[in-house]
């Protein structure tokens, strides 16, 4: 398992990033955690629909996304808000999606991020196609896809990996093995010792990395992206991490796992070790921490405000994006819906 920064904040290998960049990414992780906790809180207040927390997975998402170029494609899932935000997905749209508004799925034209995939497993093949299209069109960009340990059991994972390897498409498969797929522990998801070794089935390199280690995640992703960009083919990365919270706000983890396990993983917190690293180098102070948390909170509040102030979609909007040009039967249905019923 690739590791660079230990839980106590020590380097066991050279850092791939300058300290000031690490500091910037620490700030992003703090932002992500603030967002995430706010998400759960808002759901409890009834202001969001079901929310899927990624607490504990901040290093995996921020570290990997930090290695991307702005034009690289990202195809991620419901639990990957931090990665999507890193790649430019506007915060207010992430919130809007969570309130149950379709406009949350519509990032600006320059943001190469698909709306989050709610189906498990189905989206990885999309990254293969996007990467392929980029190559055929002579674009330099590559594609990264994020998915969980559970998603590796779906047939579509297999087909995605196989197509990627056979056609040598420039893409990166980034698995956050967070120990659980709802209530199913990783050990019962598959009998392979690691997720990374699944790459062998496709003649693809696979690497396991400490997913709570920002620097290791960055290094592994950067190397995989470089391979992809050099047309040397796809890579599977397994980031070993842990879902600290429930599967979603609708889930009760007490039904299937011991709290002690979660406590153990809290000891390997992805933020704390970076804080220690920065602190050691006098790049962290308690005041700065307060400052970035406050800045995060206010930016997040702004985004929530924007999401909640969106004029609600009307009865005609259900139809408005079904086709480029609405066929007649849909125009009729739309008119009927807009007319209402006494």
């Amino acid at each position, binding site marked *: 398992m690739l590791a660079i920064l230990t839980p106590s904040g020590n380097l066991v290998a050279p850092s791939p990033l300058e300290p000031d960049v690490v500091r910037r990414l620490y700030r992003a992780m703090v932002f992500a955690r603030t967002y995430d906790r706010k998400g759960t809180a808002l759901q409890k207040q009834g202001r969001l*629909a079901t929310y899927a927390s990624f607490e504990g997975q901040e290093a995996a998402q921020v570290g990997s996304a930090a290695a991307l170029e702005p034009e690289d494609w990202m195809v991620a899932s419901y639990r990957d808000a931090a990665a999507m935000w890193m790649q430019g997905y506007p915060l207010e749209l992430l919130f809007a999606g969570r*309130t149950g*508004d379709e406009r949350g799925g519509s990032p600006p034209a320059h943001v190469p991020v698909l709306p989050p995939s709610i189906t498990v497993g189905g989206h990885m093949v999309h990254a293969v196609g996007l990467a392929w299209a980029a190559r055929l069109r002579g674009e330099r960009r590559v594609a990264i896809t994020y998915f969980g340990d559970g998603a590796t*059991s779906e047939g579509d994972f297999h087909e995605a990996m196989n197509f990627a390897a056979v056609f040598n498409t420039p893409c990166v498969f980034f698995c956050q093995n967070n120990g659980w*797929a709802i209530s199913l522990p990783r050990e019962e998801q598959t009998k392979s010792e690691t997720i990374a070794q699944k790459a062998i089935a496709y003649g693809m390199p696979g690497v396991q990395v400490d997913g709570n280690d920002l620097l290791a995640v960055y290094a592994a992703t950067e190397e995989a992206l470089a391979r992809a960009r050099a047309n040397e083919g796809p890579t599977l990365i397994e980031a070993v991490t842990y879902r600290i919270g429930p599967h979603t706000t609708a889930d009760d983890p007490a*039904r299937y796992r011991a709290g002690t396990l979660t406590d153990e993983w809290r000891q390997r917190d992805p933020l704390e070790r970076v804080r220690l690293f920065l602190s050691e180098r006098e790049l962290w102070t308690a005041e700065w921490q307060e400052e970035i948390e406050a800045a995060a909170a206010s930016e997040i509040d702004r985004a929530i405000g924007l999401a909640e102030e969106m004029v609600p979609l*009307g009865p005609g909007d259900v139809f408005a994006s079904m086709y480029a040009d609405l066929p007649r039967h849909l125009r009729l249905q739309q008119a009927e819906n807009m007319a209402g019923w006494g």
Partner: protein
Amino acid sequence: MTVRNIAQAINDALDLALGKDEAVVVFGEDVGRTGGVFRVTDGLREQYGAERVIDSPVAESGIVGVGFGMAVGGLRPVLELQFMGFSYPAYDQIINHVARIRNRSRHRFSAPLVIRIPYGGGIGAAEHHSESMEAIYTHIPGLKVLVPSTPYDAKGLLLAAIEDPDPVVYLEPIRLYRAVKEDVPDEWYTLPIGAARVEREGDDVTLITWGAMTKETRQAADLLADEDISAEVIDLRSLVPLDLETLVESVGRTGRAVVIHEAPRTSGFGGEVVASVQEECLFSLASPILRVTGWDTVFPLKRSEHHYLPSASRIAAAARRTLES
């Protein structure tokens, strides 16, 4: 007798089936440890063990395909697919294997299994969690397709499905899981597969529906009653086989009908109902048979659900329209 909601009635049926027949196994994502995402299988793993109430990896085609092998091999699997929107990866196994093995082998092999699928919207869920795609299952020869709407029916139909020698797709209306309660017998009982239930008698117009839309349809009948329009409400309960006699009797009498479903209109099961009924009753019809359905759109997210789901007033408006001619 115990007062049960639909989720509890299904749980009770599974409990009885597991207790009665060693061949019954329950298999699906999260059905064990956590009792299913809707808690429908709550407590069954504790009682019958992890060998018979089995948590599956996340792989719907595998669940149905492995369940198929189990059934051919002598078990009676009750499979769960977590939401209808996640049932599609299993469609190939269902149509190409589950529904065909009896015919393919001329009765030598069969696949007596039940596939439970929660379906329908109205709970403000995420994308793919609100689908009503029953029609694509009703179009597969070799299956039976059931949709209960009450706790009593839910239990009796599920036990009938488990006893049935052929594969059954059993659809559970999500927004009714806990919305209806009634006295449900504690013992084993089955309801006939293929029999509709006249939920309310009436003379002026027949409202035909199933599953979750029974609620709005009943409400529409109430609205109509206020205007002295007497609506008969029929809950199909079984889509395949379809109880055409009950429909024909009713529409033959009322001369007017509205079919209501939540699924998109085009090629929804409503088309089948209309086509079959008009074939038998054309000359009794005083008005075209109307359909009140979901739109031919994606089921919207939480904030727009009410712009999609057929409402009681929309149903009542259609019923009134049939009475205009």
